């Protein structure tokens, strides 16, 4: 049975401009082991904010879960105000994450953009432990927004780009990727234009994680659908919350 839990804030740290790392503790964490899955957070008592907010798991350690998020609006602002000891109601783990089963001894590329970076960290840790070689390319708008570079460096190569050139290489992640060779497989998470560019650029098998505004987060409301690329697909659509958020790069239409 799926359930919800009041998870307890262990720690909250600002790690970049408007970007926070939050550690939560609770029983539900014991069910979390698939990178790319997400948790669905209630904002306040859920009366002013009736919709939960989907945030990816960035790391899992015992009964502690790490998430990293950027303040975008009222919900993430509320999250950023939580302090150690506060409770946050969570549904988790939801969706299907990045497939990692039986993947080893492979040259893997991780591509993250902005707040698409966090789930790749948990993924990278797992893939590294399974004996893969990792290269990570992280794209940010500007220097102030950069986070987790050091952590990814501990997993393998890590190249950072900023759009304005204020840190790392100037430009987009795709500028860097074009120079990478010997990649057998990739995983990407970030803004849709980035996912589109990356999946067009790389021909090896890849998995991408999508975002969409969600209602239920569990597959019941049809808020978060996208079309399949295969016109003969029986359903013709996928629900991002339930079938995703991770899909094979060639499965769904990116708009």
């Amino acid at each position, binding site marked *: *049975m*799926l*359930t*919800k839990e009041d998870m307890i804030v262990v720690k909250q740290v600002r790690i970049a401009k408007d970007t926070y790392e939050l550690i939560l503790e609770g029983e539900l964490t014991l069910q979390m082991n698939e990178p790319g899955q997400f948790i669905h957070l*209630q904002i306040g008592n*859920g*009366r*002013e*904010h*009736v*919709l*939960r907010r989907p945030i990816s798991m960035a790391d899992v350690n015992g009964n502690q879960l790490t998430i990293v998020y950027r303040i975008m609006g009222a*919900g993430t602002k509320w999250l950023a105000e939580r302090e150690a000891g506060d409770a946050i109601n969570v*549904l988790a783990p939801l969706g299907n994450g990045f497939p990692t089963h039986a993947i080893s001894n492979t040259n893997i590329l991780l591509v993250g953009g902005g707040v698409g970076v966090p789930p790749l960290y948990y993924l990278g840790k797992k893939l590294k432990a399974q004996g893969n070689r990792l290269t990570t390319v992280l794209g940010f708008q500007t220097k102030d927004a950069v986070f987790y570079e050091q952590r990814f460096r501990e997993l393998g190569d890590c190249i950072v780009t900023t759009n304005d050139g204020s840190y790392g290489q100037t430009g987009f992640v795709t500028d860097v990727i074009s120079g990478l060779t010997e990649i057998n497989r990739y995983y990407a998470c970030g803004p849709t234009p980035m996912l589109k560019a990356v999946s067009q650029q790389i021909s090896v098998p890849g998995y991408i994680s999508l975002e*969409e*505004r*969600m*209602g*239920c*987060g*569990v*597959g*019941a*409301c*049809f*808020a*978060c*659908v*996208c*079309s399949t690329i295969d016109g003969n697909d029986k*359903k*013709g*659509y996928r629900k991002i919350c*339930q079938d995703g958020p991770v899909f094979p790069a060639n499965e769904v239409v990116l*708009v």
Partner: protein
Amino acid sequence: MNLAISLPGLDMKNPILPASGCFGFGKEYSQFYDLNQLGAITIKAATGNGRYGNPTPRVAETSAGMLNAIGLQNPGVEAIVAEELPFLSTFHTPVIANIAGSTEEEYTHVAKVLSESGLVSALELNISCPNVKEGGIQFGTDPVLAASLTRKVKSVSNVPVYVKLSPNTGDLKGMAKAVEAAGADGLSMINTLIGMKLDLQTGKPILSNKTGGLSGPAIKPVAIRMIYEVSQVVHIPIIGMGGVTCAEDVLEYLLAGASAVAVGTANFTNPLVCPEIIDALPETLSNYGYSSIEECIERSHKNDPASSLISRS
């Protein structure tokens, strides 16, 4: 406490049912609790052929509410009967099928297929979906069209028919009386109000459909007022809904004139909201001095001769 309530076609263990479109076809929430706990289950709207619905984004949050413009996405009535209803029939909980269409023919086709499937206990005629260009709201704002549609659907259906009313009309009482006269066995109200939210960066509506249906606690006062008024002018039962989140809300709906209460948006906030409400009902009702659901309904204003009609519609 006895929470049971009997409505046309529906023998309910309790007055709580999920609202259409907020519970899919039941599978997802069955991962959270045993659906046998529910009074009934309303499934997502069915249309003749499958529909993909509107482009995304389809939802946006508002203060104490949300907008949706799903656009009646569903796999079509045949697939629903073949692939979705069998799962629900494993529970001892009556199923209400919400039906929609672009034309009277589509509505009657859907009604016929569903009622003949033997897998649903009642139909809910959705003439109030604000999110599709055709197939819903035009029937919901014109009493003559609504009555004609109700009559046609009744004639092909072997289960009771509830008509789901739109709040986006000036004369809801006229509409209610028209569909009652046309043979409706009950009413469902309310569907969503039409609303919009803009993206401040782009200046454009957040929903790709521009407008969407407003649901959640924000609309409860509008729903309560409409049910209070309509329940005084019809003799068929009303399934009330709009912003229900707790047992107190259920009591308010019963006192306003509803006989059962549907929960929509709150399922998204709290997937366990329906069983939690059902658990809380006995204590809540007795705190307020009621000893059964029937008693709340009997004590509601619609059975109070002193409760004079409100003249404004």
